[in-house]
């Protein structure tokens, strides 16, 4: 749609601007201020320069958390995106099954995140959980409290359980927007199942898939509540992701300076990633 130039439109944006300025700009400025100072409480601050940043950038703990977070996001994407596409392709296209599928599949998305954590914490327990108990009965040595690998598997399966539906719903929306005529043409041409997917369905899903990939990447990159409830970041530090590390420093140890410096580094990474996201999305808008 052709848009007209009108700088008075700023007045329409003003409420949002004030609201977000209050809840984002002031806190962000505060974080910057804290990041160059040290405090022992009572609003007394001492100049620390760039010491905190140097400390963060040279601390193994930060890089390990970052690596864990990247690995986690990568695994999540590698599992959820293909699985989501596969399920969306096999969802019923009409009839009574559609609303049932949509409502049931969306259900995990609406559960408070710490309840998701609680559900899986209970579900995986060997003594009282269905999953843990069944695995034990089958002779599998599974204990997410003690074994880092089991903790990772639990957190990943939990995230798949929690968020794959998002990918399914997005792909499904892309699929139902394909007109029947496309499929008829493919049928007349005798196209195989694969080429229908490759040349009709995948291109139509490209846009929503992009949104799905980027949303999932962002959200898994700042995951906090669910793994915190299930594993508390442990065993050891094996499931301590960036957010968990940050909250531990800021709230747990009340180290405002290092926590603020870490927030800024974390925020800059997110800013870079969301800028790439936005650029890719808007330039794909221009293509279509």
């Amino acid at each position, binding site marked *: *749609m052709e848009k007209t130039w009108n700088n008075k439109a700023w007045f329409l944006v003003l409420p949002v601007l004030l609201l977000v300025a209050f809840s984002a700009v002031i806190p962000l400025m505060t974080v910057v201020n804290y990041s160059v100072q040290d405090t022992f409480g009572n609003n007394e601050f001492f100049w620390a320069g760039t010491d905190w940043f140097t400390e963060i950038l040279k601390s193994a703990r930060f890089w390990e958390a970052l690596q864990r977070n990247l690995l986690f996001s990568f695994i999540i994407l590698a599992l959820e995106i293909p699985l989501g596409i596969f399920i969306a392709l*096999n969802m019923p296209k009409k009839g009574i099954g559609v609303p049932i599928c949509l409502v049931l599949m*969306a259900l995990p998305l609406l*559960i408070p995140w710490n309840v998701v954590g609680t559900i899986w914490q209970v579900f995986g327990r060997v003594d009282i959980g269905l999953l843990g108990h069944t695995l034990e009965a089958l002779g599998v040595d599974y204990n997410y409290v003690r074994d880092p690998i089991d903790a990772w598997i639990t957190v990943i399966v939990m995230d798949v359980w929690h968020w794959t539906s998002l990918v399914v719903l997005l792909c499904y929306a892309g699929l139902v927007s394909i007109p029947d005529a496309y499929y008829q043409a493919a049928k007349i041409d005798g196209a195989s199942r694969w080429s229908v997917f490759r040349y009709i369905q995948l291109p139509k899903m490209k846009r929503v898939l992009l*949104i799905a990939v980027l949303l999932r990447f962002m959200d898994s990159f700042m995951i*906090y509540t669910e793994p915190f409830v299930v594993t508390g970041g442990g065993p050891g530090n094996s499931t301590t992701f960036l957010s968990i590390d940050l909250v531990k420093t800021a709230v747990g140890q009340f180290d405002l300076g290092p926590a603020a410096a870490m*927030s800024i580094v974390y925020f800059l990474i997110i800013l870079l990633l969301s800028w790439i*996201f936005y650029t890719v999305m808007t330039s794909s808008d221009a293509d279509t």
Partner: protein
Amino acid sequence: MASTIKYKPAGNLSWLVSTIYIVFLMLPIYWLINMSFKENSEITGTFSLWPQNPTFRNYMVIFTDPSWYNGYINSIIYVVLNTIISVLAALPAAYAFSRYRFLGDKHLFFWLLTNRMAPPAVFALPFFQLYSAFGLIDTHIAVALAHCLFNVPLAVWILEGFMSGVPKEIDETAYIDGYSFPRFFVKIFMPLVASGIGVAAFFCFMFSWVELLLARTLTTTAAKPISAIMTRTVSASGMDWGVLAAAGVLTIVPGALVIYFVRNYIAKGFALGRV
């Protein structure tokens, strides 16, 4: 008609895929519901796939103890407040973004987006200081305002997607007919994007309902959300699994209720109105 030729997805086994997936989704939830109807001795003592002695005790604990049910009331108050604030602020802004170009519009839009993408953990600490300075700690409005951080950008984004689908000729015709902007917006335009408003409201509701970190940081007693009470009370009373499960089940109910109304739009909402 040709439209009777239907494309069959992946043969006859396709229903199996959805079914297996839904079973996978429902199992943990079923286990939670199952536990919520059991007594603690049964939960820890025996292993049973359904309650042997179904009991409503766990739910009665929640419904009779103010420190429990107030949590639900607190959550609902700040979630509703947040939804109203977010949608009201986002409506004119989304209209501006969908209809006009103005100085810095793209960067403004991107800046809003970054707030949606910012990790709440980054803001937990300064929020606490900010709301302390305004004396807003432990009030519903504090949580409602804090959740605006990610809900307002989201609402703007979704609404902009829906509004871009409304042809501009409608605006122009209305202005020619002598409508003022506020009257046009309320009388003509808002009904046209009603489904978009519904979806935006639903998403604000949802993300405010599921968020815990900020809600927990900004409240102590009077406005504490149910999800935070859950974590506290349980550790204090030595793992009352039954009540924990019942409280968890009750947090799922509101989402399950509202999802039915937006089932046909939920995917469009997640795609930010851009399917």
